[in-house]
């Protein structure tokens, strides 16, 4: 019974802080910290996969939207003393608006130019974040970002942040599922797999690309806002091209276009280096090589391997 399996998995995930405390007492803080990152990264990767995996647009601008949301929320919370929910909403809206504005000219570009154009956007955003010191504090970073607070309810403990991360991942996953199945999913996939044919089926490629791009951008901004409320500090170094590479590794490692695949990829990506205690530079070398090998040899990722083993067409299961 699938329902029962979901309920059990859900219960385990919610109870995880206590389970970890019981099983690995000294490690609880560390493990929960990693899991917060895993769930936020997982949500971010899912939002990115909407664009890359489901409408087939290789955008490299995701760090820019993450950054807009993060900086928007951080500055509103620290400078203008906006409450948490308002800052979060602002992060979502600002990033979504940014995506809407840059999406229109970007989607006029084809293929390589689109990738380069979006890469340029990410670089420019980073340059602005680094140099507009009056506004963003530049390399001095925005500090003292307050923890999430709604009325009297405050998230200040690690288990609390873990649940916040879990809830974020769950919400984004639900949204991802709804957007990529049924008719909307078919429209996205039609645009991705055969744009010419999709047009002849009265599907407007630009409209659906913009829809995915804007929603993905908004989500990235919201996740950025949540991220800064956990870390408390925001520096321009968070918005580098490396973030795009990381997201690409997660998506391709796990399985582009697949909910389960992307989440698994994100988990593997965040957990592994923690387990291996790799230095950041070596980490990037490994990721680079990993991405290279995966994209050439196993472009379907882990999910593809599993599917070939099981020989089932789960990804395009008819919803009719």
């Amino acid at each position, binding site marked *: 019974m699938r329902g029962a399996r979901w309920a059990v998995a859900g219960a385990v995930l919610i109870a995880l802080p206590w389970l970890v405390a019981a099983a690995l007492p000294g490690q609880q803080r560390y493990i929960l910290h990693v899991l917060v990152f895993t769930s936020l990264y997982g949500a971010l990767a899912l939002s990115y996969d909407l664009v890359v995996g489901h409408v087939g647009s290789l955008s490299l601008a995701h760090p820019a939207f993450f950054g807009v949301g993060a900086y928007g929320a951080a500055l509103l919370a620290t400078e203008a003393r906006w409450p948490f929910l308002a800052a979060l909403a602002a992060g979502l809206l600002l990033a979504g608006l940014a995506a809407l504005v840059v999406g229109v000219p970007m989607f006029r570009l084809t293929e390589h130019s689109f990738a380069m154009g979006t890469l340029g956007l990410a670089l420019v955003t980073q340059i602005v974040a680094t140099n507009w010191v009056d506004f963003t504090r530049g390399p001095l970073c925005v500090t003292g970002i307050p923890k999430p607070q709604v009325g009297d309810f405050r998230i200040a403990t690690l288990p609390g942040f873990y649940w916040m991360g879990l809830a974020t991942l769950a919400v984004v996953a639900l949204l991802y599922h709804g957007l990529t199945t049924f008719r909307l999913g078919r429209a996205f996939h039609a645009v991705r797999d055969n744009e010419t044919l999709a047009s*002849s089926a009265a599907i407007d490629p630009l409209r659906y690309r913009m829809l995915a791009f804007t929603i993905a951008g908004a989500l990235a901004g919201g996740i950025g806002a949540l991220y800064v409320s956990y870390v408390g500090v925001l520096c321009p170094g968070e918005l580098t091209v490396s973030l795009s590479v990381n997201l690409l590794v997660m998506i391709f490692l796990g399985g582009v276009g697949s909910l389960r695949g992307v989440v698994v990829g994100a988990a593997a990506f965040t957990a592994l280096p923690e387990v291996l205690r790799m230095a950041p530079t070596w980490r990037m070398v490994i990721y680079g090589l990993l991405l290279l090998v995966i994209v050439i040899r196993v472009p379907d990722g882990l999910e593809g391997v599993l599917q070939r083993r099981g020989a089932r*067409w789960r990804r395009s299961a*008819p919803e009719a």
Partner: protein
Amino acid sequence: MALFETRGLTRRFLGVTAVDGVDLAVEAGELVSLIGPNGSGKTTLFNCVTGYLAPDGGRVLFRGQDVTGVAPHRIAHLGVGRTFQLVSVFPRLSALENLLTFLQQHQEERFVGRLVRAPGVRRLEAAAVERARSLLESVGLGARASAPAGTLSYGQRKLLAFAAALMPDPELLLLDEPAAAVNPTMIEQMKAQIRALHRAGKTVLLVEHNMDVVMDISQRVVVLDHGQKIAEGPPEVVRRDPKVIEAYFGR
């Protein structure tokens, strides 16, 4: 008023005039074939009237409305269906889902309703599946409804593309070489399908090289050569037209 018309349609490519001032009119319910030697501009014309290419001159009218240069998805939404010369399907979707994809834009879209699967939405979907299944049956693909379109043979994919174009019940159907690269049995099947459409009152304009097919099913034939219309009329008349004979053989 003709259902579909081009007036002085012109399109150039790097100095070559692929379509040169073509006037073409198709009345509702007609079955018209567009023929001509290779490179005479037939597919270019198709692409111009369906929005994939912007004409350099002239106008395209559908139901009296000027649709010159309108984007392909909007022309499709107005009720124009087409197939492509190089057969085109969505390979990762099943045959059934291919057809469903062609209908969905013509049904009202209510996102929230879809999320919670409201009863009205479910009825629409059921009707869509029903229609898709019967169309697949009518082209002989009923048994392969769940098969991924990429696994079908070339001829089967052609039939699938044909069925998909019919799914939204278009008023005008443009078929680009339906009989090309297909075995004789399949050709007969195609001809029967097209005739059935004609009997049902649909308007069909097809581009075709296979003269047997053209002569057999067309009400009217239009001949292009070097982008210009050189002849027009019933099949029997056109085949004897000296200009047409010269265009095909006098090179």
